[in-house]
């Protein structure tokens, strides 16, 4: 069955972003949570949908349209640039067959801005880091790591631009989870050296949300250096969002944008080879 309960607050564009926010469809909660995030200092928020394949046939829902939540984006005091709300999908994989949905070209996965995968076994972690077309790999924080991290898949993931994600709101809720969060995070940092790490909340309520600079300080406890911790809530999130955008383009080099053509006649008159030369 499908949860539509995670929201990710994303920090991006070098402004604070948080990549996790729980959204419950049909209630007012996501809107209040999102507004709270922006008032605390984030510039970009992503609303998350979690999918866990427990039954054989699973349909991924379409992402919540941002216009459903907000008819007009809320204005935040003290911010000069407009805020952004994105949609995100997290797929919990415990079996190799679950990854097939990511390979299918016509699946609804493409409709989300960011795609994350939560591998439960070592093999799936390896596959997620090296092959899967995702932007984020989630690291478990609520239990002892079921496997050890190894350097090769993590290095491949860093080269590919895939980021690792740690969540902090379980640590706020419970002290045992706090221990697991910190120890799992330290394990990750030993191997990845603080590169490509994102810290986000998995907040369901405003009380579980912390400000961006506080989360950057939390990164210090996780073993990040000061500048890496700040990047974990700003620069690395921006990189993850851009990585998500490249999935919609051709290898991230060319993007097609619909632009109104003022006059078709001039362009058609030139033969194709001459046109190419002009564009150089």
């Amino acid at each position: 069955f499908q949860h539509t309960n995670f929201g990710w607050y994303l920090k991006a564009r070098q402004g604070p972003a948080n990549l996790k926010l729980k959204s419950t469809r049909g209630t007012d909660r996501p809107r209040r949570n999102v507004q709270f995030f922006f008032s605390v200092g984030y510039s970009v928020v992503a609303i998350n949908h979690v999918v866990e394949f427990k039954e054989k046939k699973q349909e991924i829902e379409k992402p919540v349209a941002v216009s459903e939540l907000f008819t007009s984006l809320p204005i935040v005091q003290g911010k000069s640039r407009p805020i952004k709300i994105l949609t995100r999908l997290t797929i919990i994989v415990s079996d190799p067959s679950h990854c097939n949905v990511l390979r299918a070209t016509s699946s609804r996965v493409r409709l989300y801005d960011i795609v994350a995968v939560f591998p439960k076994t070592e093999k799936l972690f390896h596959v997620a880091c090296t092959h899967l077309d995702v932007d984020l790999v989630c690291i478990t924080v609520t239990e002892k790591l079921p496997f050890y991290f190894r350097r090769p898949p993590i290095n491949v993931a860093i080269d590919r631009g895939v980021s690792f994600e740690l969540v902090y709101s379980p640590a706020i809720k419970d002290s045992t989870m706090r221990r697991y969060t910190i120890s799992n995070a330290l394990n990750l940092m030993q191997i990845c050296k603080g590169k490509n790490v994102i810290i986000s909340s998995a907040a369901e309520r405003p009380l579980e949300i912390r400000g961006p600079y506080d989360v950057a300080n939390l990164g210090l406890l996780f073993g990040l250096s000061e500048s890496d911790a700040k990047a974990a809530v700003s620069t690395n999130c921006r990189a993850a969002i851009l990585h998500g955008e490249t999935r919609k383009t051709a290898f991230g080099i060319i993007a097609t944008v619909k632009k109104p053509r003022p006059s078709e006649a001039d362009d058609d008159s030139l033969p194709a080879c001459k046109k190419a030369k002009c564009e150089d």
Partner: protein
Amino acid sequence: MATLRRLREVPRHLLVCEKSNFGHDKSRHRHLVETHYHNYRVSFLIPECGILSKELKNLVMETGPYYFVKNLPLHELITHEFINTFVKKVFSLEPFVCHCVSASLRIPPSLCSCCALTYNTNIDEDNTAALLPNGKLILSLDKDTYEETGLQGHPSRYSGRKIMKFVVSIDLMDLSCNLDSKKYKRISWSFKEKKPLKFDFLLAWHHTGAEESAMMSYFSSYRIQEHQPKIAVSTMTDLQCPVLQSSELGGKPEVACGAWELLDWLGAVFSDVELNNEPNNFISTYCCPQPSTVVAKAYLCTITGFILPEKICLLLEQLCRYFDEPKLAPWVTLSVQGFADSPVSWREKEHGFRKGGEHLYNFVIFNNQDYWLQMAVGANDDCPP
């Protein structure tokens, strides 16, 4: 373990303390005050003083208006008209030449300097622009904006692993000499067509002998508002003050306190913190550095706004003259705090915001015209001059 070691560290900060005398030829006090452009808060503390003298009061009231313009496009700051009206200084070399030059401009021969800073932009996440009185326009842009404007700049020194911030410096005086240059055309094209940037600006203009409302009328097509700096005064009674000796910058045990102890104490006084080290005080267990005395009353005045360095110079001079007549107070202090989101601290040294964006300086003026100067900066900052 590396993490534990890092957790024990304090965020990087620098404090430069120096002592000198106002009478010295080589005293840098004027230069340092004049090159710290974006000042947010000025406070002075006078022990053993209940009311302010008339001259000081007038100066405090006249820290000048500053202006707030909404949605001002950047290309307005590089127009010939703007540069000639507000930025260019006219030097009186020869009366005839000066007269001719000034006749073609709208202002009489005088010195003027204009200062501007974007409002509500965070230096670590947004694009920021600042105009310095020496005619330089500094833009601190994030990677995407920098690449879109197409201007030449250099990467910020405090960018981290990946370079995400770039600094573009445009010399307006240089540009205005030659308006047909390729450089000017490119900058103009970039600001008008390629990537028109608009910001809310705080502006202040120091001028001698020009009309007061020139700025209001110049930007009348944009929403410009005039503001007066906020002034807060308080008189404290029975304040514990540290004992200082002007010759002992580092302090002498049992005799006088050091410069950094004074700065800590001053911060506590400004924050209105109890200095008694009471065990049941939840907020603070700070106590006044020893040796200390108790003064019957002290006068604290704080001016908040967008304050020009020229006004601070006048304030400093007036505080020096405080000791022309014999006074009970052994010293007075003048503290100036800069905007946390300014792209520069002193002159054109880069300023950043990691977890705090402080750049401030503090004068301690003694009754024998000696002074101490402390300059403090935070993590993402160059060393103060």
